[in-house]
């Protein structure tokens, strides 16, 4: 049986269901020597803000059991440099670009979305509502349904492209936040961002990160991410979900597709293996063939929820 790996994500046809996750693939250009950018399901760019951001001081990273903490602090060159440089490069390379936006208030998000709406070469927009490495907890919009909805509404009003809202699992009721952003117009959801964490150097008796806290990623968070996708897919059937969190292998990706994700994104896995996005897609093709599925979209119906 032949397998068609392509999927429909919010009306956009992706070559494979495997994207490169935001913040874990740079701006894509860095990886041109490692993979064929046009062959990937998509590239979610590192989040772009209106003005350039320097990011946090170092150390920005700490390895933890089966994962890592990061506090990069949204370092990016700002939207103008992004449009003139990396975006043009990605478009010329034939990549499917998902532009990730970050701002300090709904107005900033709206202006960013409007600025990018005139740029060719962007397939979808992802709204980063959930980066934990910000100055104020209030900037983690996805911890509050109303604040998250306000940002999504501002972006939707300013762009004609499909909008993904990236949410955090660091909430009591994820479904409530998901429902709020979908009601505000989000076309799909990306689940989940890193989890807020902290690690201590007990010899030096101080935090291992300069920013004290950071975002936990890697295989350590995969069960949390799978649970989130499952919960949201159950509560909001029909809303496309990009599942992300600790995917290193094709089997990891299959977990997400089985519980209802439309597509997946490989994050920290690309740090370990620069070709991970490609290799996970290749492995999924084999997995689907072995399972007797003709496409990734068929997997969810094959999931046996009762144990």
């Amino acid at each position, binding site marked *: 049986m032949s397998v068609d790996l392509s999927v429909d994500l919010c009306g956009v046809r992706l070559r494979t269901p495997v994207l490169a996750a935001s913040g*874990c*693939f740079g701006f894509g250009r860095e990886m041109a020597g*490692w993979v064929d950018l046009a062959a990937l399901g998509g590239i979610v760019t*590192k989040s772009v803000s209106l003005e350039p951001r320097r990011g946090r001081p170092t150390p920005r*990273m700490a390895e933890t059991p089966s994962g*890592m903490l*990061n506090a*990069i602090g949204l370092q990016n060159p700002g939207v103008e440099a992004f449009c003139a440089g990396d975006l043009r490069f990605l478009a010329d390379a034939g990549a499917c670009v998902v532009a990730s936006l970050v701002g300090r208030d709904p107005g900033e998000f709206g202006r960013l979305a409007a600025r990018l709406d005139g740029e060719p070469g962007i397939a979808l927009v992802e709204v980063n509502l959930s980066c934990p490495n910000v100055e104020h907890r209030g900037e983690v919009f996805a911890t509050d349904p109303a604040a998250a909805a306000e940002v999504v509404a501002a972006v939707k009003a300013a762009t004609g492209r499909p909008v993904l809202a990236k949410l955090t699992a660091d909430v009591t009721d994820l479904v409530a936040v998901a429902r709020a952003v979908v009601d505000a117009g989000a076309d799909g959801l990306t689940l989940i961002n890193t989890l807020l964490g902290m690690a201590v150097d007990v010899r030096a008796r101080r935090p291992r990160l300069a920013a004290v806290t950071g975002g936990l990623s890697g*295989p350590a968070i995969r069960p949390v991410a799978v649970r989130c996708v499952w919960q949201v897919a159950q509560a909001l059937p029909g809303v496309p979900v990009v599942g992300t969190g600790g995917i290193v292998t094709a089997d990891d990706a299959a977990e997400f597709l089985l519980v209802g994700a439309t597509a997946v994104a490989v994050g920290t896995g690309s740090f370990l293996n*620069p070709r991970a996005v490609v290799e996970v897609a290749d492995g999924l093709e084999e997995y689907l063939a072995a399972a007797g599925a003709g496409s990734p979209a068929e997997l969810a119906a094959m999931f046996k929820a009762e144990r």
Partner: protein
Amino acid sequence: MTPVRELCEVLERRRAGAYQSLTLVAPRIAEAARPGQFVHLLAGEDRSFPLRRPFSIHRAERLGRSGGTVEVVFDVVGAGTLALSRLRPHDVVDTLGPLGRPFDPPEEPAGCLLVGGGYGTAPLFFLATELRARRCRVDFVVGAATAARLLDAMEAKRVGHSLTVTTDDGSAGRRGLVTDPLPDLLARTGATRVYACGPMPMLAAVSRVAAAAGVPCQVAVEEQMACGTGICFSCVLPVGPGDEIRMARSCLEGPVFDGATIAWAELGHPELEPTA
């Protein structure tokens, strides 16, 4: 040249004084490697510590008896380096390389002063070989906390025109820091290039001395790193002219930087005096 991923067989793993030496069969990496570049290693199956470990290339043999090889030297400081220290011949190490920007050698033969601290001396032997092939004069200054933590001082003596050793405790060479003999050596050898690798405070101090003498200084930094390929933005370093400081990725723009461009004050070290 684009870096590659090679699954490399371990040719040899041995103790090198206080350190560990690991030689990998890596023909494609050895062929392309330049002094100052690094390899990013992943060993074993245990992914509970999931990240690669970066090491500067100590030696690259293009025509070794097992094909091309690269050698790295490291200190056992945690779980990752402990696993690497337990590798045996024929084990396989997943290796990315050669990564990063190499040292920039002088166009014409020139006097070069190579300054290394601890296992940070590792890439300087590879550099010295290239500089000698370019008919440069090479003088070594190597320092460490103790005599046991000096890396291959005999090798430095063989490759260089002269060798000056310093240790913090005076157990070898003169007691003190590598920077102590630098002004005198710069004057005496007439070196017009300084190349340094070692801990950040040392690199800051060497950059200061070189700047004061008006000699260009390239430093290879060792920053904490996740991806090694430019996508994680962990290994950044503030570089700039003063009012335009930006965070440069040491895996892509480095690990070799012009010491005069690093914003040392932001890293907690005294800023360089502006040169006249």
